[in-house]
């Protein structure tokens, strides 16, 4: 079984919000209709987004680290938002594990958003239906696009390649290798939702410089630069063997 998901590398994310704007641009222009913006140029702009980048400060000054944290639907393997839906508008696709909302069936009761511990679902205040990340389902299978572009908009937009996209059930995929080898983890594992999206932790890359790396002891130039020795006194091997 396939389970498409994102792997987000917190070590690389610089918090530029390119994934947010690109997600909004793609999904507000799609066949599923616009994503409401209220007061976009006013005092308190608000609206529906599938993806947001948050910022956290870890530690106490001066020993702090800023962590940019992109947050979207995690496409849980055991998605708690799906069984609570009274209409069946919320569903998880068998084919690729994407959790979707059928906007034509949703009654806007908000029960699924209560049942999501991550706050990944946002109701569209104008269309009155629940909306959430679709993993750009209208893009990743689009054969009119070049194959390299059949990825979610956020993944393509990321300038630092902090977002990987692939099948987490395929042990050899990029995402599975990254999760396995870079310490990928899930959010709020205590609720047993088994999120498909994983995060890669911050990793410190330390540089170790040893003394002998600064001063090369075995530099062959040291020997070569020693000036040539003068003429040799007496007979040499060459004298006796030259004929």
């Amino acid at each position, binding site marked *: 079984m396939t389970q498409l998901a994102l792997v987000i590398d917190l070590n690389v994310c610089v918090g530029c919000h390119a994934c947010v704007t690109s997600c909004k641009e793609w999904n507000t222009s799609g066949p599923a209709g616009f994503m409401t913006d209220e007061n976009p140029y006013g005092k308190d702009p608000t609206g529906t987004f599938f993806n947001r980048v948050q910022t956290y400060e870890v530690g106490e000054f001066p020993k702090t680290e800023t962590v940019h944290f992109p947050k979207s639907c995690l496409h849980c393997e055991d998605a708690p938002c799906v069984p609570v839906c009274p209409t069946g508008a919320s569903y998880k696709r068998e084919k690729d594990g994407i959790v979707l909302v059928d906007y034509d069936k949703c009654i806007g*009761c908000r029960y699924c958003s209560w049942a999501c511990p991550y706050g990944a679902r946002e109701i569209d205040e104008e269309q009155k239906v629940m909306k959430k990340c679709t993993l750009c389902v209208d893009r990743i299978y689009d054969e009119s696009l070049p194959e390299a572009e059949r990825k979610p908009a956020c993944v393509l937009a990321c300038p630092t390649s902090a977002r990987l996209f692939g099948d987490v059930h395929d042990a050899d995929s990029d995402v599975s290798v990254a999760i396995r080898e870079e310490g990928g983890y899930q959010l709020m594992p205590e609720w047993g939702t088994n999120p498909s999206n994983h995060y890669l932790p911050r990793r410190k890359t330390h540089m170790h410089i040893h003394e002998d790396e600064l001063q090369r002891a075995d530099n062959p130039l040291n020997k070569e630069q020693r000036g040539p020795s003068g003429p040799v006194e007496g007979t040499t091997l060459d004298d006796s063997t030259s004929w």
Partner: protein
Amino acid sequence: MHPAFSVIFLTTLIGVGQGLFLALFTGQSYAAVELVPSQDSATFYGLGGIIAFVFLVGGLIASVFHLGRPERAWRSATQWRTSWLSREVIALPIVMGLIFVYSIMHYFGLDTVLYTSKAGTTLQLSLIVGALGMLFTFVLFICTGMIYAAIKFLQEWACALTPINYILLGTASGFTLAAAFASSNAPDLLGLYGNWAIIITAFAFITRGGSLIRNSRIKAKSTIQSAIGIRHPQIQQKAMGMQGGSVNTRDFFHHKTATFFKIIKWSFMILVFPVPIILLWSGMESGSTSTLLGAFIIQYVGLIAERWFFFAQANHPQNLYYQTT
């Protein structure tokens, strides 16, 4: 959670309607075995059933305001296999239908005797309809309670006390209203309803108080550390990813001060339990309908505060991601 008035009115109004119907059916079953004198079909069971029905209709109307797309509400009956909300959507019209049929049978005298025992006790058709109504009334109470209790990470709700409180609080308010109704239309039953109303209110005090104690001791399973997966005791959110707020900042928090929150808690603890018990007692002594009606109105106002508090107290783990509101 943000307490939505549509849901507050839905749950409290259908609670009264269900409780009042349970009271009427209790009265009729007691009368059938001659524990209490039987009452006039039309002016007591019929009219009382219609009052209960009106409360349920009120609740149904309130629920429509909670839906974004009420015109598609019929779809919400399809997922009864997995969703408690869907089960409630099925149970509510069944209860309404049975109560409606029960009242009409009494009001227009359409009842028939199905069986008469040698001792002279009779089994009437309305008792069968009433028994079904009682069964589905409890099903509806359980569905309503389980909608909240089934969300395991809303730890304040995920507890057997949640459906128990819905059953007891709804029934208490219904019996209080029944006592007021009986004092004018069936004085013989005032004692029965008044005493039961006091007993159920007292039980509800124990279970609701129990859930308050339980909730005050909850240790949240999710922390900011598990939410973003960084193991450091000191994590502070600096930006939520938006400027003017979002659904996440509006729908999951009550946005009131701690003082207001405390005032609501104490007001409902006083208005739902001790005040109606005292008024019920004095109303039973004097037989005054206005005192008993006062008991019901005060209890109902208290229940609105109780329901507000019920929602406001639930702390959704998604709030961990939205801390700079």
